[in-house]
């Protein structure tokens, strides 16, 4: 029985009008990987912010014991001094500084008050090797992919002599192989250096893979802590804890199957990178989507799926686009995004905060943004129509908010996603391209989004769904295309497809690329 490294007792944190944490207890043993799970808004991030001193001592009730001593952290520096390092979901790296500079940001290697560049880069390299990064420490952050940036954050934590590493949804923006690499790293550090980790994640299979214990939070309260050792951990039990009910079926049933009419047809679609115009990001892709059909696009990050979708959507991405695009048998030559919307296309972005929603504006204005014609006469807004429209969509998609005047930035991830989807349904498209529609969304909201997708299909809308979560594609789609390196390498029916088959296709194709 290892000793307890961390004990949080009776933590209660109030925000104006909200009890974000209510008497939460968390015990983490030395050298274990402890997972925190819960729906968005359950209080996971708040709890970790209390622990790391982002919410300073005195702004919450309860006690934190770390290494058997009562802690009163006032800033994040206080907690880092004790070896508690938190890595946030949105990475805190400066894009135009080098890896080495980022590694020691706020903790600079210096000699006589000046930066010691040799030590900076030498030490940076040491830490980078520990996490398996082979890059030059002088590389700028902007030139690294998300997966490597995430690893770098861990290296940065190591440079701070981390003892307790907190990771807030570390894999949410990684593809499966990068995610796996990261999780393996955590396991290795646990084994070799005895580093204790707390990991927040929505991905149940990952938790099952790394976690020794799983604490489930719901509505700011601890529901239970499950131990891997005593075989208590099952997906059903975790989900039940998170949502407070049994989720018999994670994917809602759809009765109606697609009709034979082809809605969207893309032929020999090739797109080049907008800056590096010799790089082909989409390479001769052909695909079809029928009316009322949900078609998935599987692939690793960087396979060209988003690029394909955005280039189809009125050339929103890419250069030197070639190929034909047909809708209902008629060829479309789209001149831009407004043209694409007019022709009944919709692209629902994977990055809802970055390029999906106007966070500082109301739900009402966001929902109506893509289709002003429905709420205006000759360019003059009809505010009654706007309000009615927004309220109708709020109810239809059950967006949880007091009024549609509320700022979108104040909603939870799931509700934000519903606003985003609502905006595009409001635009009355025939073909919807959904890019990672459930990223960063909790289990309950996921189910609701699936239901929305099914409803759309039942209304004979055609849906092209890009997702990095294979189970989701398998559960939702009638057909799945597998993309790799800009090309479609396989097309599978619902019956043929399985996680193993899809991954196998990708691995084979990647191997081929290396071999060539």
């Amino acid at each position, binding site marked *: 029985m290892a000793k307890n490294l961390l004990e949080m007792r009776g933590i209660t944190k109030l925000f104006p009008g909200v009890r*974000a944490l209510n008497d939460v207890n968390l015990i983490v043993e030395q050298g274990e990987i402890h997972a925190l799970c819960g729906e968005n808004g359950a209080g996971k*991030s708040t709890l970790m912010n209390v622990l790391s001193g982002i919410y300073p001592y005195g702004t919450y009730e309860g006690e934190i014991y770390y290494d058997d001593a009562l802690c009163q952290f006032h800033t994040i520096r206080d907690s880092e001094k004790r070896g508690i390092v938190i890595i946030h979901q*949105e990475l805190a790296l400066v894009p135009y500084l080098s890896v080495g500079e980022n590694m020691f940001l706020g903790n600079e290697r210096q000699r006589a008050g000046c930066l010691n560049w040799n030590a900076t880069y030498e030490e940076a390299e040491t830490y980078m090797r520990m996490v398996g990064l082979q890059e030059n420490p002088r590389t700028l952050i902007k030139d690294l992919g998300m997966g490597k940036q995430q690893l770098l954050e861990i290296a940065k934590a190591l440079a701070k002599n981390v003892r307790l590493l907190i990771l*807030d949804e570390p894999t949410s923006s990684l593809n499966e192989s990068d995610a796996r690499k990261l999780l393996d790293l955590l396991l290795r550090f646990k084994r070799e250096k005895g580093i204790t980790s707390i990991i927040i994640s929505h991905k149940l299979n990952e938790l099952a893979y790394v976690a020794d214990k799983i604490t489930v939070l719901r509505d700011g309260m601890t529901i239970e802590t499950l131990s891997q050792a005593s075989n208590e951990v099952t997906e059903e039990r975790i989900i039940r804890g998170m949502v407070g009910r049994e989720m018999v079926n994670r994917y809602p049933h759809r009765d109606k199957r697609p009709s034979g009419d082809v809605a969207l047809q893309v032929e020999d679609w090739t797109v080049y990178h907008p800056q590096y115009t010799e790089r082909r990001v989409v390479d001769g892709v052909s695909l079809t989507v029928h009316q009322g059909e949900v078609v998935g696009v599987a692939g690793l990050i960087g396979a060209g799926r988003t690029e394909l979708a955005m280039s189809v959507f009125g050339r929103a991405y890419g250069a030197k686009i070639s190929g034909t695009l047909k809708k209902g048998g008629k060829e479309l030559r789209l001149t831009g*995004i*407004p043209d694409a919307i007019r022709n009944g296309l919709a692209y629902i972005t994977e990055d809802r905060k970055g390029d*999906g929603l106007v966070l500082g*504006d109301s739900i009402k204005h966001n929902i109506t943004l*893509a289709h002003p014609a429905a709420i205006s006469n000759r360019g003059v807004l009809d505010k009654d129509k706007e309000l009615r429209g927004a309220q109708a969509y709020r109810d239809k998609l059950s967006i949880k908010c007091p009024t549609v005047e509320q700022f979108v*930035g104040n909603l939870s991830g799931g509700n934000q996603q519903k606003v985003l989807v609502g905006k595009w349904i409001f635009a009355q498209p025939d073909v919807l391209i959904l890019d990672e529609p459930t990223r960063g969304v909790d289990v309950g909201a996921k189910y609701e989004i699936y239901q929305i997708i099914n409803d759309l299909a039942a209304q004979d809308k055609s849906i092209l769904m890009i997702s990095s979560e294979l189970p989701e594609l398998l559960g939702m789609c009638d057909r799945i295309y597998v993309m790799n390196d800009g090309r479609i390498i396989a097309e599978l029916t619902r019956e043929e497809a399985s996680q193993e088959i899809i991954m196998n296709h990708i691995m084979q194709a990647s191997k081929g690329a290396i071999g060539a």
Partner: protein
Amino acid sequence: MNKFKRLLGGNINIKQYFMVIALVAIVTFFGILSSGKLFAPMNVSNIIFQNAYVIILAIGMLICILTGGNIDLSVGSVVALVGACVGNLIIRQKMDVYLAAGIGLALGLLIGCWHGFWIAYVRIPAFIVTLSGMLVYRGLTITLLAGQTLSPFPAEFKQYSTGFLPDLLGEFNLFGAKLNGFCMAVGVTIVAVTVVVQLINYNNRRRKGYAVGRAGALIAKLVVIGAVVLALFFVLARYKGVPTVLVLAGILLLVYTFFTSSTVMGRHIYALGGNEKAARLSGVKTNGLLFFAYANMGLLAAVAGLVFAARLDSSSPQAGQNFELDAIAACYIGGASAYGGIGTIGGALIGALIMGVLNNGMSINGIATDTQMVVKGLVLLGAVAFDVISKKQTALPAIRLGRKKKAQAGNLAL
């Protein structure tokens, strides 16, 4: 403060009401300090003359700021160049006043389109494009005027800036004061129309079952607005009546308020400032809107240039210096966000009035220009600081202020 908020029907922009209160406080303060001189009929007319062009510039500037916190630094130089151009045409070439004014406006629009092209289509930061313009147009102004001041303008030109509407109804006496009848009639009409429109709107909304504030709050608001408007026109009527430039500014304010709040294009400007990428992916023609914002600013700067030249009765190489800063300050004091997407024409008007009354109030109380500058600078900082701090406390629009940093601090990620 909360009680106050509820009294006004909840869900309002405290900041804007705060600035109204600040304006009232400043007016009262200088009114008392100058033992009423501030409210003297001639002085009130003067305040209008002194600030009309700032208001006109602030309208254009607000739209630029809305598109993403961009500012146009060149407007002061455009004011000077347009003034020099019409001065040259009217005074030297004896050109027809209206034709010359038309050419002046076209010049402003052309300059605006020049900026818009570089900013929207080549994507050079507005700050740099307009900084370049600031130097170029000032240089051209001096060239055009050969470093000299042109004067005087014919009365036909001046009447649009320093003139008054003719009294069509004749004078009459009220409370022993001689009043311009037409001016009072205009004031009463404005109040009557406002009240009727507001009440009809209120009723319509209630009938259709939408959330409406308390009727009492609306009536209180209308009474206050009515009283202020009537008082203003009463004071103006005691002098020479309605200044022509007030009509011009009033029409521009109405048109642009309608444009920003009730048209699709206006809505799109807010979306562009709020999140450009999201707006673009929603089919908003972001480049076109950016172009429009600067072209429009150029046109309004030309209008301000005409008004200012007519008021000074001269075209001077030094005209319009620091006007861009007054206009920018007016927008920020009036609650516009330095990141774009937030701000109203009404706010910019209040901001311009705060600066204008500060100027005038300090001047008539004999406070020197150097002190005036210090005070105005501090007021600008104070107003924006209030904005930032009040937003932090409500933690609502903090998203746009702190952006990612804030998200990392976990305020959003519950």
